[in-house]
């Protein structure tokens, strides 16, 4: 799948999450031409802010993402999903796919009754007592890129908790592979929804593991795994 059709699918997936009551918000996505061959898929509005955030991520980073609408989807529990791909021609040149769980557990009733948005609720109420309210949760990020590949820096890898953590992954992740991972592990009720599952289109991914990567514990999945 090339950048244009994938971009439309990502947006549509977000609207499906939103329309079925699984998300608080979903952003439109757009294709940005970086060069004659390179195209990037980003959420709209395209802020000039750096995509990269510090890892370990701080509460302030999460709140900043909320405040600036820096996400593809915002799930009902405040979990943030960011989808960013760069294509070179028809091939994925790089990706940054992140699931950022909300560091607070809030009730949806509160969000409905509070006179403000989620950022306002968390910033003004939950941040007042971090000891009682804050949950220690790390963002989970799947990165892919071949320019910095080396031992202990696999082309495709999962980062959690610490920037030095790069668990090798079998291949660059397709959008639907990443969403399957997030939903199966963190939103099983959403994964089990037929309205959501219908949206999935699995595709073959080209392996990017090196011999060194195979010598370590790494993530693998079967192409086109069955649904719920």
């Amino acid at each position, binding site marked *: 799948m090339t950048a244009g059709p994938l971009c439309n699918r990502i947006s549509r997936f977000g*609207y499906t999450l939103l329309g079925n009551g699984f998300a608080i918000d979903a952003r439109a996505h757009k294709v940005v031409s970086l060069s004659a061959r390179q195209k990037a898929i980003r959420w709209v509005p395209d802020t000039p802010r750096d995509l990269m955030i510090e890892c370990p991520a701080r509460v302030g980073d999460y709140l900043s993402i909320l405040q600036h609408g820096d996400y593809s989807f915002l799930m009902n529990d405040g979990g943030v999903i960011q989808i960013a791909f760069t294509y070179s021609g028809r091939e994925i040149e790089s990706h940054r796919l992140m699931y950022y769980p909300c560091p607070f557990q809030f009730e949806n009733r509160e969000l409905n*009754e509070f006179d403000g948005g989620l*950022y306002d609720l968390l910033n003004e109420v939950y941040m007042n007592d971090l000891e009682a309210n804050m949950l220690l949760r790390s963002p989970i990020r799947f990165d892919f890129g071949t320019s910095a590949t080396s031992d202990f820096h696999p082309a495709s890898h999962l980062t959690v908790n610490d920037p030095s953590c790069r668990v090798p992954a079998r291949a660059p992740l397709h959008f639907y592979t990443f969403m399957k991972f997030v939903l199966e592990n963190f939103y099983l009720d959403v994964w089990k929804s037929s309205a959501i599952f219908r949206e999935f289109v699995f595709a073959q991914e080209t392996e990017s593991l090196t011999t060194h990567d195979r010598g370590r514990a790494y993530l693998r999945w079967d192409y086109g795994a069955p649904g719920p």
Partner: protein
Amino acid sequence: MLDIVFGENSKTVAARALQAALEDTGVSGTLYLGYPVLSTADARVFIDALLISKARGLIAFDLTSHLDPRPDKEQLNALRERQDQIYASIYNKLNTHRDLRRGRSLAVDVHVVSFHASLERTIAEPELVACSPTGLRKVISGFGGIDEEILRPLNAAVQRVSTLRPPKKREKVSKENSRGAILKRIEKEIANLDQWQNRGAIEYADGPQRVRGLAGSGKTIVLALKAAYLHVRHPEWKIAVTFQSRSLYQQFRDLIRRFTFDQIEDEPDWSNLLVMHAWGTARDAGVYSTVCGQYSVTPLDWRTADAKYSSRAFEGVCEELNLVIRDKGARQVFDAILIDEAQDFPTSFFRMIYSVIPDPHRIMWAYDDLQNLSDYEMRSERELFGLDNRGQPLVTLRNEPNKPKEDIVLPVCYRNTPWTIATAHALGFGIYRPEGLVQMFADPLIWGRIGYEVTRGELQLDSDVVVRRDPTSYPSYFVELITPNEAIQCETFLNEARQYNALAAAIEKNLQEDELDPTDILVVLPSAYTSRKTGASVMAALAKKNITAHLVGVTASRNEIFSPNSVAITHIYRAKGNEAPMVYVINADFCHGGFDLSRKRNILFTAITRSKCWVRLFGLGDKMRALEKEVDRVRAENFDLSFHYPDEAGLKKLAHVHRDMSDEERQEWERKIDTLADVIRAVDSGDLPLEALPRGIRDKLSSLTKSGNVLRK
């Protein structure tokens, strides 16, 4: 006639003497006392008084220079320097406005006159003019007037609004009569403050002052200008500007900064000019949390207050704090406070404020007349602030001649066309609803206050009456640029998909043919409960046309609701206080009937009145068709509202029948209705003989079905 705007420092003897002397001359125009405040490269320049008169031009008055009855050379030199400074500051300010230049010169002469009661003779040297009250007539008779085409931009430049809200550039507008072109003309017109807003912004009562008007009459701008003006005159004062809607934070900051910069070419001192939310948190100061700090009280956060007081959360915390204040005594926290959206604040907040702003209690509040149709009982200042220990109101607002007004009304609604607002009222009250009225003001005189005039009948209980928009309540450019038919339109659809597709097609046309910008468009969803589902469908439909859209206020309500190149979609509660030239209300059928009808019709009223120019009501099925018929009827009556004003009993019945219901109450009624439906089905099919129903019930059912709605006239 001389229109006088009493700014700060306008009560001085000199100011009063100038006012009297000018009135004696019979000159007409606008006299600003204690305004504006300008700057040169070296210093802030306070203009004691400024007259703009078509016949006599622009005259700045210096009232503060010390002058002996026969000034010596030294005094005259000092006076010349002061006048030069005044001249330079005004010239520099006006010279930045293209409309006020002719070639490389100013199109208007700037005259400076020092006015002093004790001067024995008039001084009229080149670039040095001074006189006493008796000499004023002769002095100003020598000044030429201002061309008509310069008068308006000159007023705008003095009032500063033209630089506060620069209109969108609208560079892509090329067709003469497109919607984009119409907006361009309207935005140019709206840059001037009218005389009411003028007065509200600059007029200073040195005590409590209320500014009120309909939504869209400019209250927020007036408050922001007033805050900036006071700050510039008293930079050492702690001035709080507060509100409940977080989205106002950035709006106030931007307005105040630009006005302050425009006047004195400097940033406001935000450590003294405190733009803050009413509540506040441990990290962001608010009014309530700041007062708590003064009394060494830990402020309660919303969550704790919500658990304790539920929907009265803020009211409850203010009441608690008032007990502490009563116990420990009043302490100064601010020198002045300006409160926007005063109708949303509980009385306990005003009582708290009164205690922490000492005499003369510089409390200025902006009150929205009829944000919605139910909250029309504006609390009096007596109710807000309470009584002293002699039983007298602590605050009484008076408007007396030749004194700054304490109760300012902004009567012109700039936001809505007269046809839109008349239709919104008609639908909101159910005036042309076949089943009868849904709600009505308890006090008939409110209609006059909100810009209606009586054309037939009497505005009193149990009387037939016809009202229409008073032509003085709206700016003339609506009539010149927009037609009633274009202003408001309805459309009914068979199903949701067709509605969303039609919406997307209409917005596509707005962007491609009508020369509108995505930020000119607002889609309003009446039901907050289903707003995410509906929002998703709208976004998906727009995405098929490559139109980007976003949901408003989901994360941070402080953010702008409009985003470049994206159409804003909002549910009704976030729409409040916002506006757009083109508004689409979809699923409007939600507001047609059923339970909570007052609330639903209020929602419709609020949704429609978000529109600055054009509004489109979309909806489904028979309910939308019925709403459409109500709108058609308004149009057929030429936007006159004709109805029978209920008597007291009728008003009470309306309030009861269409009242807001709790979820539990609604569910209980739904159960009863289901039971009734079962009974009717059984009688209809013969399962239950009609005679099995008690006679009393049979007779009542019969009379109800014969007479229709018992509340109809």
